[in-house]
């Protein structure tokens, strides 16, 4: 900044161009730290991962180029297909319920709860680390000693094997993460709601619209770009579920909760098949890419109805 001011005084006639050049230098400076991180931790690993997916690599010895062999193997790998089905089941349950609940909480935050304290509490689960959340729920949902099953028994219902049954394990893991993330998602949606001008609601109220009509006809449509962003980012996060599974079930029973990230982790770090694991990662990336583009198109997230 000092440099800039000095130059302005010395050479007022060249002010415009010199300022632009200086802005560029400053911009580079500000962008550099983030760019270094982005290149070192995202771009380079992605490129290397893509390369490794065409190789046979056990981490100890240099990778050997095998062409499309890993991808051919993928097609007949039942475990991989199972893990995709399991992941889709997880994402479906997670996203549907998380979004609905978050929307509900956001509306409550906007319409009912003014207290910053209560709003803060809604965010609490998000502030606790994933591993701790998973552990706490693992204990609470334990078949023999968990408090949840004690409660079920008092009400007169049979005990449930939340993490031990093949049917319940994915819904259970999905709900643990819904519990953790709904407050945060609600906050994002709430922020979007704040940007909807109050005048619209006032006009609607004058016209005699009910609360539900206002929600249906004003809030939802005007929230669309925001909601689309929230759904896309949480869906990408949801596809990448790992820590909760790793802490609670490690993919079991049998492969009932062997989500795709868990499978990739096991392939790479316990079987040392880094090449094949990279190929599965590339497939996951492609799935996410297709879904994101599709959603962006479908929801027209880049245009707002407000203007």
């Amino acid at each position, binding site marked *: 900044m000092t440099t800039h001011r000095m130059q302005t005084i010395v050479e007022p006639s060249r002010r415009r161009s010199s300022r632009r050049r200086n802005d560029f230098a400053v911009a580079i400076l500000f962008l550099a730290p983030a760019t270094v991180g982005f290149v070192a931790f995202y771009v380079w690993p992605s490129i290397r991962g893509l390369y490794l997916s065409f190789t046979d690599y056990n981490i*100890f010895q240099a990778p050997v180029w095998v062409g499309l062999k890993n991808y051919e193997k993928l097609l007949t790998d039942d475990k991989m297909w199972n893990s995709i089905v399991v992941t889709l089941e997880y994402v479906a349950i997670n996203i549907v319920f998380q979004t609905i609940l978050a929307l509900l909480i956001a509306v409550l935050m906007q319409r009912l709860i003014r207290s910053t304290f209560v709003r803060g509490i809604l965010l609490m689960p998000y502030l606790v680390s994933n591993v701790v959340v998973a552990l706490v729920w693992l204990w609470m949902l*334990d078949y023999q000693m968990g408090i949840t099953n004690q409660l079920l028994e008092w009400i007169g219902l049979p005990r449930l094997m939340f993490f031990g049954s093949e049917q319940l394990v994915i819904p259970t893991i999905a709900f643990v993460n819904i519990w953790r993330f709904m407050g945060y998602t609600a906050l994002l949606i709430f922020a979007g709601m704040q940007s909807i001008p109050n005048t619209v609601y006032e006009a609607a109220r004058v016209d005699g619209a009910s609360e539900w009509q206002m929600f249906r006809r004003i809030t939802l449509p005007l929230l669309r770009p925001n909601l689309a962003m929230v759904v896309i980012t949480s869906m990408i996060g949801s596809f990448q579920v790992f820590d909760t599974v790793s802490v609670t079930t490690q993919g079991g029973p049998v492969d009932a909760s062997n989500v795709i990230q868990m499978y990739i982790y096991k392939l790479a770090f316990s079987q040392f098949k880094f090449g094949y694991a990279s190929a599965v990662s590339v497939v996951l990336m492609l799935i996410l890419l297709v879904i994101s583009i599709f959603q962006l198109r479908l929801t027209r997230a880049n245009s707002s109805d407000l203007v």
Partner: protein
Amino acid sequence: MKLTRVIAAAAVAALTVGVAGCSGGGGSANDDESGPVALQYWLWDEAQLPAYQACATAFTEENPDITVNITQLNWDDYWTKLTTGFVSGTGPDVFIDHLSQYPSFSTKGQVLDLTDLVESDSVDLTAYSPGLVDSWYGVDGGLYGLPKDWDTEGIFFNEAMVKDAGYTDSDLQNLTWNPTDGGTYEKTIAHLTVDKNGVRGDEAGFDKNNVKVYGLAAPSDAGGTSGQVLWSTFAASMADWNYLDKNPWGTNFNYTSTEFQQIIDWYFGLSKKGYMPAFGVSSTNAYAQIAAGNAATAIEGSWNSNSFATIKGVEIGIAAGPINEQSNLRGSQKNSVADSINAATKHPEAAWKFVKYMGTTACQDLVAAKAVVFPSIPSSTEKAIAAFKENGVDVSPFLLYNDASTGRTVAAPVTLAADELSDLFGDAFDNIWLGKTDASSLTPVVEQVKKLLESQ
């Protein structure tokens, strides 16, 4: 001017971060063999840390220019950290190795072949408890570790519950067993099982869906490849049975015979009868179930003797596995851990010196005095048993398998691709425990595993 200063500051910051990032390993900074050397030694069992710390201290007293820094990591992190350590060059110089893990390290050239060192220093490999060294010969014939201890399985039981059920200690010590009706072993387990209404497992009106105390604690998983603390004691009691056609380095698992599959169906069948928790009922290990009073007995490894003996408020007795009615033998898997040397160590001589020292009675007697494991040299084992006894724990049942007239041991299976096998067999045993299939489903898995191992 300010800009340059900012850039310089940023560069310095980046450099510092870089340096900090690199110094994580800490260990082998000293390249000079003649100067003082600091060895990095890794192990996973917290309970064994004091014992080997005592060893390391005594070693440094004898070799003042070599210090040993011990790092203890939990089992789950241990192998990941070790792998990244090998790759990044920040691994330990010496580490405790496991039979299920060393094949992949040795075939990838990460651990040192000790054959020549053993020969040139004429280390007596016959000093170890019989059979222990055999498992540590790699697929290429090299020796990849010196065994430091051994373990077998046994029955840990809650003394009070056993007494309440009308049994004596010697009843538990002399159980017999067959895979058809389970013999007196199953009768005892059944009688020790108590439901919510106080009805015992072998009495009329027993409610197997509402059990308060199980006769046998559930293992924490279906046992992977070898069922070590599950069914291995029963399988090993069959005369002539072994895990593999050839161990180590066989490809064909002996899991296809009717006799074997009968054992598996009988064992997991205990769950269906309500004597052992069904799959998923218990998310804790056997130790926790015994400590919480949810189970009366558990099949567990000798290395856990101390943990069980020190459970507050629960008096624990130890018995060997039941006697097979047909072979008249007790059986157990026999496992060992060993010290291996990182092939990339900068101090191979010091590392070997330390490994060699840990294989002597000087170190093993120190370990024995701490009463945590059975050292690999028989005379030190005797001392460990005496030390256990002094602490009030009678571990002699674990030795019954070693006498060929009363028992037999089978070496833990050593194969390539152990993790993949553990996944394949783990899923198969999961399904059997879940009750979705019976043990005949193991036959195709054995075929699959055979093909996989032959393609390695």
